[in-house]
């Protein structure tokens, strides 16, 4: 089981919760004056890091309250849980080595990692 500690209810199974996307994205105050590309950045573009990610979660089946979480996206370690409106605590995360040397952002290509460890096979290696 994957347990999440709700700030109100304590540890519950992940099936109680729903994910709410990246946290701390403030809606622009002057959206009328914004360019289309700046608006698209706000609506669609997310940081998608490998490592510590601040995200929103909702305890949907329990107290139905939103809260924030810092999660290591590479290992799924939950580093901190804090209430809405609070400042995120300082945390550090260990990132596993990436044998294929992918960029820190946008790496989900496990196939590439496997292929580079088996030397001389194929052209799909991630170098």
């Amino acid at each position, binding site marked *: 089981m994957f347990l999440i500690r709700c700030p*109100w*209810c304590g540890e519950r*199974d992940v099936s*109680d919760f729903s994910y709410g996307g990246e946290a701390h994205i403030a809606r622009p105050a002057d959206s009328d004056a914004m360019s289309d590309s700046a608006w698209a950045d706000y609506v669609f573009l997310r940081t998608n890091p490998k490592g510590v990610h601040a995200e929103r979660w909702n305890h949907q*089946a*329990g*107290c*139905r*309250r939103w809260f924030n979480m810092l999660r290591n996206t590479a290992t799924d370690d939950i580093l901190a849980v804090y209430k809405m409106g609070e400042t995120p605590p300082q945390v550090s995360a260990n990132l596993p080595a990436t044998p294929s040397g992918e960029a820190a952002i946008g790496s989900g290509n496990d196939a590439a990692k496997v292929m580079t460890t088996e030397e001389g096979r194929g052209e799909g290696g991630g170098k």
Partner: protein
Amino acid sequence: MAEPRTSFRRSPLFHRRPLEGEAGAVRIAERPFLGKFILRADAQAASDRLRAALGLGLPSEPLMSASQGDISFLWLGPDEWMLVTAQAEAKERASTARGVLVGVHHQLADVSDYYTIIEVAGPRARELLMKLTTLDVHPRVFRGGMVAGSMFGRANAFLWLPLAARDANAFNLFVRWSMADYLWCLIADAGREWGVPEETPIKGETLTIG
């Protein structure tokens, strides 16, 4: 239909008879028509006024309930509680609560027909619930007076263990009307190993409304 219709109040599980396992290992029954109200308010502002009017304040701890006679407040969230009360006094108590909360930013919504309660009681009640939910219902964790929402099978429900119950294991499951029959069948099925009999709904498998 030929005969004239008379108006009657139908509970969500009116077509289900109470069930019992072997030697009372588990007992399953609906508690229909209790008065239920969702209260949203600031705890500090509301609690003292409610205590003065109803003789019962809001529970101070998360996941706990407070009971006095047949009135209970169940914690559902940091600014949300459910007032549970006997059917006969429900309207009167709600208007009393509304009266004392004048001037406090609040909301009191009647959800008596939105939820029904399935009572799961008996010495095997905890084990039965363990089969349906990821909640920890071990007596070390889930103590008398506690309230917790979670998934039971595919149904979202609030589990409450009233402190002053006749039976120390008389769990109350608050489930929405449309999911009540599903959860009833799931509980009855989970109770088979303790001898809960197979059951055909009153009036057969076809639900007749009217």
